[in-house]
């Protein structure tokens, strides 16, 4: 018997944007999948392609974007589908929340009405009372106290933290199979971030919704994700279960990234932080071969690192790294790099 297709299967996804100097390779050959109920973190810095990938999944990229590859939702291809089909899916099977979605609240409608609107649109057959019940259920799920009373209040009567929670409630209204959260904590104050993380945890623990968490914040990913995908210069450079990724990364970029983080829980003052030399590359004029090689301390020049784009190498259970030198990387931990003992 053929196993069920994964919830989301992305295969060799590539996105190029035309520019005067040539195509900008925002995403290049990214392959990954998300199973039902899984929480996957996609981390990378700016220019890594993570946000463009997330937007590509829902067909939200501008028309000039040149997209290749395949994105299959439960076996059905999404790329190239007409807008109407995608609209059906959005909010129903796949929900997306953006960085600062406070603007998605209409100030003259009650929060409950707005959360319920998503239901009404996709399921007009649901009665008003059933809808209301569901709304209260959702508000309680995201941790809003006194949900029945609060449902009738207006956005301005909610605190910032509660609005963030309500925003997530809206996304979950139709019990989507996949929630894509794009930088849900960036630009938020720390205490507000805590609220958002709390809701995401509740969603993870209490619903069956799979979550794709797109962020640059490794701490957020550490607490929430089961599996992590690391992006660099438009390519997926490492994929691993979360504990393995942090304890024993096998791609030099991941290793360097982890080593360069200042720690909240440790005294690091006095010695310089580890830094990855150089800068993220131009996405128009990418380095040949491995995009990270100009900054990599493990590189072998000229071959293969400057000549061949590394494919994924299996380095452990569920752990892949797109690198020619993973065996060397295995000998170094982030802690060692951080305190300067190679």
């Amino acid at each position, binding site marked *: 018997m053929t196993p069920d297709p994964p919830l989301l299967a992305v295969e060799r996804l590539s996105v190029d944007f035309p520019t*005067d100097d040539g195509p900008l390779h925002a995403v290049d050959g990214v392959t990954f999948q998300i199973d039902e109920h899984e929480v996957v973190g996609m981390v990378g810095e*700016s220019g890594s392609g993570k946000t463009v990938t997330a937007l590509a999944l829902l067909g939200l990229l501008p028309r000039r974007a040149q997209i290749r590859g395949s994105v299959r939702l439960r076996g059905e291809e999404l790329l190239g589908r007409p807008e109407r089909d995608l609209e059906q899916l*959005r*909010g129903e099977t796949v929900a997306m929340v953006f960085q600062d979605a406070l603007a998605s609240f209409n100030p003259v409608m009650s929060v409950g009405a707005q959360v319920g609107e998503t239901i009404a*649109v996709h399921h007009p057959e649901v009665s008003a009372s059933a809808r209301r019940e569901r709304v209260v259920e959702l508000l309680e799920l995201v941790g809003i106290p006194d949900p029945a009373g609060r449902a009738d209040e207006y956005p301005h009567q909610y605190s910032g933290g509660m609005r963030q929670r309500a925003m997530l409630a809206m996304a979950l209204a139709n019990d989507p199979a996949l929630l894509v959260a794009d*930088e849900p904590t*960036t630009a938020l104050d720390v205490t507000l971030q805590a609220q958002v993380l709390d809701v995401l945890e509740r969603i993870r623990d209490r619903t069956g919704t799979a979550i794709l968490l797109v962020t640059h914040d490794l701490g957020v990913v550490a607490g929430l994700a089961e599996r992590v995908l690391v992006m660099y210069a438009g390519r997926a450079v490492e994929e691993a279960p979360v504990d393995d990724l942090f304890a024993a990364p096998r791609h030099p970029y991941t290793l360097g990234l982890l080593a360069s983080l200042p720690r909240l829980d440790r005294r690091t003052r006095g010695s310089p932080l580890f830094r990855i030399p150089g*800068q993220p590359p131009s996405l*128009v004029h990418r380095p040949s071969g491995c995009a990270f090689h100009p900054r990599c301390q493990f590189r072998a020049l000229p071959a293969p690192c400057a000549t061949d784009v590394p494919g994924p190498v299996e380095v452990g259970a569920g752990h892949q790294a797109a690198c020619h030198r993973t065996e060397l990387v295995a000998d170094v931990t982030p802690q060692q790099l951080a305190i300067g003992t190679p």
Partner: protein
Amino acid sequence: MRPPTPAPPAVPEPEPVGPSELLPSVEPPTAVEAQPGSAGQLFWRRLRRHRLALISIVVLALLAIACFGAGLFAPYGRDEQNLALGAVGPSWQHWFGTDELGRDQLSRLLYAGQISLEIGLAVALLSTLVGTVIGAVAGYLGRATDQTLMRLTDLFLVVPAVAVLAIALKKFGHDRFTIIWVLAALFWMYVARVVRAQVLSIKEQDYVEAARASGASGAWIIVRHVLPNCVGPIVVNATLSVAAAIVAESTLSFLGFGIQIPATSWGRMLADAEGTVGTSQSYLLYFPGLAILLTVLAVNFLGDGLRDAFDPQRGDA
């Protein structure tokens, strides 16, 4: 009815910034790579892409050369009459025909262009200068100074332009200097507002505060930091006001308040050709009208091109 999906973040037009190291909240995900060169060089590069603007520059240049070089190019004198010939349509000897005094219209058009263009340019320059100074001072000093200057601006805006013009011209004469001054006095307010708005926003930028922190005086900051960053809107506005001034002058002259004979401008020529619509002499009207139209269009296209060249973040082309 669409489901209330949260609005996706606008993926903006690529802008020339360096390999990005900024967090997504600051940097668009599709940034183009940095292009070397000063802001000036970048500006020319962007302008060159705007074909209409380039064509307009050429057209305007040719027009200017032809008009200001009328002494060289005009086949006949400005006032050279040929009473025997009378009004004749376009022909090989007179490309644009003649009026009832037998004066060659092409030549008259070129000489008239001198006046019209001169007025247009002078008004633009003067009003831009005055408007920039007032706008910059109001914007930078703020508070009482700003209030006072803005009320003054409002005062000028409220005045009924045509009436004032008519009175001023009657009182001070119809020569082109008066026209220039009076028109400039009616245009500067628009520049002032634009400049003030620009200054207000630039004033809040960190680099202005950094200059203050390093001890720079207000004047230094305005000249070195604020005004250079206002250049874009100022130039665009100035360009567009050339067109506006030409039209204004034409209107004035057409109404009889502007240029008086024996001098002539395009507007004057229009006035002189009044009543020829539908007759065999309508060409007397069309050529000056076309000249004005051509100039105004060219100036507007150029203004568009300049605006895009100065400010690349203008959304999808």
